[in-house]
């Protein structure tokens, strides 16, 4: 049975701690740990999305350098380490593929409208929230989980999924929508995963 102190949650907590040490202490040993954990996974992830291994390697190095430089913008209350690093990898990959910059929201933007619901949510740790997301995905009906996986984990547009699964496009879209609705329901109305 999954509990909040599962190995995955403990690991997520540890990764966030290392990231915190990189931000606050410029701790190179902590950075080495993060590199050891994330760099091979990032490379595998990028190759799965269709990057040439050489390009994936360059991107990984670039992402990890950005992790070092931007560690102070990581907010453990907002996202897990893997999620934060995912957004960096997503942006770097796009910047590289299309030579344009994918935007990032600036948390110090004077126009940023603060999230009042965030305080209500503060009792729940990010690692726990990501843990519940992980288990919620596991509980999805198989056909929904598969489509979500293709849409997100393999970055296939809905049209390509329809072609691969021989399902009508409308069915693909509605199943993905169902999966998302179900995740949202399991995770509470504020979507705090």
């Amino acid at each position, binding site marked *: 049975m999954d509990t909040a102190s599962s190995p995955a949650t403990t690991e997520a907590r540890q990764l966030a701690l290392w990231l915190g040490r990189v931000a606050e202490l410029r701790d*190179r040993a902590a*950075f080495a740990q993060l*590199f050891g954990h*994330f*760099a*091979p*996974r*990032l*490379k*595998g*992830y990028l190759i*799965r999305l269709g990057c040439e291994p050489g390009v994936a*390697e360059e991107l*990984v*190095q670039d992402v*990890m*350098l950005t992790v*070092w*430089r931007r560690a102070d913008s990581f907010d453990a209350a907002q*996202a*897990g*380490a*893997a*999620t934060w*690093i*995912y957004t960096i990898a*997503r*942006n770097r*990959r796009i910047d590289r593929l*299309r030579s344009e910059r*994918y*935007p*990032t*929201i*600036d948390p110090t*933007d*004077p*126009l*940023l*409208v*603060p*999230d009042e619901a965030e305080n209500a949510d503060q009792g729940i740790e990010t690692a726990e*929230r*990501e843990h519940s*997301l992980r288990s919620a*995905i596991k509980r999805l009906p198989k056909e929904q989980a598969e489509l*979500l996986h293709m*849409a*997100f*984990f393999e*970055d296939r*547009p809905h049209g390509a999924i329809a072609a691969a699964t021989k399902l009508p496009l409308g069915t693909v*879209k509605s199943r*993905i*929508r169902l999966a998302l609705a179900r*995740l949202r329901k399991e995770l509470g109305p*504020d*979507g*705090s*995963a």
Partner: protein
Amino acid sequence: MGVPDMPQFHLSEDDLLDYAAGRFAQPFAVLIASHLTLCPACRRSVARFEALGGLAVEAAPPAELDPGSFEAVVARLDEPEPAQTLPPATGELSRLPAPLRALVGAAPAWKKIMRGLDEAEIGDGRAGVRARLMRIAPGCAMPRHTHGGREMLIVLDGGYSDEIGTYDIGDVAVAGADVVHRPVADAREGCLCFAVSDARLKLTGPIGRVLNLFIRY
């Protein structure tokens, strides 16, 4: 200006998922990031989708790194970081959320399109995606029009009303060829907005049809 109201018109979950997955061309993504800056609810949705991305990275089969990969990164840790400076926000540019300000730059090239409407083209229009800032004078009505492809628009200051509703700061309107409307800018403040489209607008009124011939709208 006081406490900002929460936007009333949002992006669809599909669009937010595609944003989180990185599937939008830059001008659309910038428009969405601007809405996210102003809308905590959509920000939470995107955070949830990005957490899916985090899981995807965690679940990926680790690939072997090049020899010396770690050392190559460590050797660069002390390199000075390329400066990332945003142009100073003055005047109406201070109404632009940071992602949009970064795209627009310090001096958008405003042009008078017609009475009551100024526009500044943003970016290079690559891949057929056209982005522009629009400034509509208070109370001014735009010619009735529809959209050849997909258009997204975000209100940055003031607001406007059309057949669908009243759009205030942060609200997003997504229109396709099925929407024909005649927006009227707020009577007091006018409207500053950012619009992105992947095809030209078509004016539909009798005068509009003639204007189509003259205006690269």
